[in-house]
Structures are given as structure tokens and as C-alpha cells.
């Protein structure tokens, strides 16, 4: 008994890792189809876009890094598709990482149906601006700050950019940047009283809820589950819903693992073998 308990407490971590990998691959290859439920924060995110009248102006920072494709990728494509479907005009800009702009161009845009929207009239992609929060301040006050768009066109030649001068003309701010978006909220949402919705990592949700309570953020997508629920609301099952089974299975494995290690730990401690 003691030897089993001490073995449990000293499992080689590689065994745990391999088990986790197996438990991720299995549901991906043969889907199980476990049930799920839509959260209030996701519904509010959906409503924020859904309730905008056609022709509204949105400033979007779809600005995630390559590492987050698993977590936030579905949020990006779903949101983008929602904007195109609802005839909303938007300006896309990245402040966090330059690959955010490259991914936008190469991964998200090709995956959505752009309908009959015209570049420069219905939407503009500014790309990446160096300078982070300092650049955000400058951009919020004057949208012509970056001078050129992602493709090298002068901003003053684009029709949408002549209509929209600063944050004052924007109806909604969307930030999908892995949850570390307090700087963006501080520069875009608060000073101009523009409602903001954010796509965060599941881990970033507690931080975002704080902003929701403070009235800065009106809706949140939390990681892959948020995207899966959003897809349910949009009635377009996609990438997010697939990954949810794997999440469940691995979580259950980890929960069992920690219960067993604690039982083993207590059994050894009650015998006085460890302190």
C-alpha cells in the first residue's frame, strides 16, 4: 500500500504528459459530441454586434499571435464573418505583435466569406503599428497617424478613412488580443466612452469580468468554449465546437489525477512517512 502511494506521488512527469496527449488525440479523431451551454457573457458579446444597425463603424483589433490559434482563432473568424454578414464597416489594426497583422491577412481573411464588400469603402486593414500604448494614444486621437495601410496605400486615399477621423466616430470597439487588452481599453474605450467587447483567453476571463463590472467592457468571449458558444448562437458549427470534447476529457483526467495524488499523500502522511 505504502509503495503504491509513494509511486503515485513520484510518477514520472513524462507518463502524465503522454497520457494527456493520447486523451487529446482520441476525441479529435473520433468525436464524442458532449453537451454544452451558452454563458451570459458570450450572449452579450453576440448581442453587441447583432444590435448594431447596418453601416455602423467598428474599430477592430483582431490581434492574436500564432500561438493562440487554438484558443482564439475561432473567435477571430467567427467575429469577422459576423461583421461582414451584418453590413458593418470596420477598421482593423494591430498594436501588440506584427504577426497579428500577418495572421489576419493569411489565416483569418481567407477563411471568411467577404460577401460583396469593397476594400477601402466597407473595411480597411491598417496592419501593425509599432509603439504599443504610446501609439494607441496617438491613433485614438487621430486615425491618420499610421499614414499607410497594410498594403502600402495612403490612408487619405481610402474612402472609409475620410469618413472616420478619430475614436469619436466609432460605435463599437472589438479587441481580440488574448485578454491582455487593458492598455487598449484604457486608450480607446474609457476616454471616448465607446462600448468595448473583447475576445480573451479562458484564463483572461476573470480579469475581463472586472472590466465588465466597471462598465468598460460589455461582452466577452472566453477562449475556445466562448467561441464554441458563439458558434451555437450564430448557428454556424465550426472549428471551436470540435475541440470541446478533448477539453472535457483532459480536464476529467487531471481532476482524477489530483484527487488520487492527494489520497496517496494523506495516506502516507497519516503513517508519518512524510511531513
Amino acid at each position: 500500500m505504502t509503495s503504491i502511494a509513494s509511486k503515485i506521488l513520484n510518477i514520472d512527469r513524462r507518463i502524465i504528459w503522454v497520457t494527456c496527449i493520447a486523451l487529446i488525440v482520441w476525441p479529435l479523431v473520433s468525436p464524442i459530441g458532449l453537451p454544452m451551454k451558452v454563458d451570459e457573457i458570450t450572449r452579450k458579446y453576440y448581442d453587441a454586434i447583432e444590435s448594431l444597425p447596418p453601416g455602423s463603424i467598428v474599430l477592430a483589433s483582431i490581434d492574436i499571435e500564432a500561438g493562440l490559434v487554438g484558443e482564439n482563432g475561432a473567435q477571430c473568424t467567427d467575429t469577422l464573418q459576423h461583421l461582414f454578414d451584418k453590413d458593418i464597416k470596420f477598421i482593423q489594426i494591430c498594436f501588440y505583435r506584427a504577426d497579428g497583422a500577418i495572421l489576419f491577412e493569411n489565416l483569418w481573411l481567407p477563411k471568411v466569406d467577404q460577401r460583396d464588400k469593397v476594400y477601402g469603402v466597407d473595411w480597411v486593414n491598417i496592419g501593425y503599428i509599432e509603439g504599443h500604448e504610446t501609439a494607441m494614444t496617438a491613433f485614438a486621437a487621430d486615425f491618420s497617424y499610421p499614414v499607410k495601410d497594410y498594403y502600402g496605400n495612403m490612408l487619405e486615399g481610402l474612402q472609409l478613412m475620410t469618413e472616420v477621423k478619430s475614436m469619436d466616430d466609432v460605435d463599437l470597439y472589438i479587441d481580440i488580443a488574448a485578454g491582455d487588452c487593458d492598455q487598449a481599453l484604457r486608450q480607446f474605450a474609457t476616454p471616448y466612452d465607446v462600448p468595448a467587447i473583447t475576445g480573451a483567453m479562458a484564463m483572461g476571463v476573470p480579469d475581463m469580468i472586472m472590466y465588465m463590472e466597471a462598465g468598460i467592457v460589455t461582452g466577452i468571449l472566453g477562449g475556445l468554449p466562448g467561441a464554441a458558444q458563439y458558434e451555437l448562437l450564430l448557428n454556424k458549427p465550426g472549428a471551436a465546437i470540435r475541440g470541446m470534447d478533448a477539453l472535457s476529457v483532459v480536464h476529467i483526467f487531471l481532476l482524477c489525477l489530483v484527487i488520487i495524488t492527494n489520497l496517496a499523500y494523506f495516506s502516507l502522511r497519516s503513517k508519518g512517512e512524510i511531513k
Partner: protein
Amino acid sequence: MFVEGRIIQMLLMILTIVAIYFYTDAVKKGREVTIRPIPALDAIEEAVGRASETGRPVHFTPGYTLGGLYNPTMGPGVMAGITILSKVAEVTARLGTGIIVSLAQAEAVPLVEETLKVAYRAQNLEVPANAVRFISTEQYAYAAGILSILLEERPGANILMGYFWSESLQFAEGGSYVGAMQIGGTCSPSQIPFFVASCDYCLIGEELFAAKGYIDRDPASLGSLLASDILRSILIGIVIVSFLAFNLNIGLIIDLLRM
């Protein structure tokens, strides 16, 4: 003239400046200050000592900033980390332990080199070659570079103090795989849980900025510690009073705060 909505903030800022100035003066004139112990800072000596016994180097990194040191959210944390480096370098110089400082900011290279030079010159020593290693301003290239350093140099102590993002846990666990003693410390609210869980000792939030005062005990730092405690008391008072006032339907205090 005055920006609406920031008048109270301005008063708070002026109050803090005055308080720091006043208390620094008071400490200079002989006011006694007792500071509570901060185990993580006392542990630096122990960690470097252990590394030096086993003949392994010490690894230090002040973390990652997006953009550079001018980043308003992350820059201050990294700078605070560099102020602690002067203490770490002093101990490594004294014990003759190797030190590796890995950086994600190019402009911090001269700063860190000078910090090391001063600490080593005090012991009449030269800074070890290859001590300051800039790796990358890109987050994951920086992370991979540090993981390689951990595997190749096998440090005996892994000191992570500054601002981190997700790489915090990679460094903390990476250090534990090679058997280093770990001291963490960050003001990043999203990463502090992992340092608390994975490191042997951990500086939490404000302790990072107070570290220099704790180590040096010079009047300026002690005065600033006293002042921040006063500011903390004032804020706690404001929270309680404005909460009660708000719920007794006296909107005055919240309106004042919004001024």
C-alpha cells in the same frame, strides 16, 4: 485647463510626491523604520550560496517587455527587476559565482552591463565574459533562448524578477527540471499565481518595487515605503467610506472621485 475627471487623481499624485519627499526627509533626520521581513529577498544569499557550492552559475532575467522599456505596463516591472540585479550581482561577485543575465530588451544591455560592472568593481573583479545575453525582443524566441541556457548552463539558482507573460511558468518549471533553486517575483497579475505555485520563494506585486528599499535601507527607499503605506491606508479608507456613503445614498464621495 484642468482635465475633467482627473482632478482627484492629480491631488492624489501631488499628495504621494509630497509624502515621499516628506518621509525621505524624516528618515534622513533619524526617524526609525521597521520593515516586515521579505523571505524571498533574504533567500537570494542562500540561493547564490548553493549555486556556488555546486559550482553552477546563477541565472537572472528581468522578463519581457512588448516594444521596449518605454512600455508603460511592463517597463516599470523590468526596471524594478534590474534594481534587484545589483544586489544579486553583489552576492555573486563576493562568492565568485558565475552569473548569466538574459535580456529581451536591446536598450537594457548597456544598463545591465554597467550594473554588473559596478557590483564587480566593488570587489576588484572583472565582470565574467558572456554574462549579459540579449536574446530577442520576440517573446517566444526569448523564451526558447532561455530554455536553452537553462539546459546548457544548468544554473544552480534561477532568479526571475520583473515582468513576465506566459513564459513565466516555462522558466520556473524549466529551472526545476535542471534542479535550480528558484526565486520568482513579478507585478504581473496574470503570472503571479504560477510563481507562487512553482518557485521556492516569491516576491508578490509591490514587494518587487520595495525590494531595493528592503535591501539597501537607504533613507530615500525607506521614506518611499512609509509613503506608500500611508497612500495604502488612505485608499483603504476611501474604499470603506465611499462604499458606505454610496449605499446610504450619498453620492458625493464617488462624484468627488470621478472629478
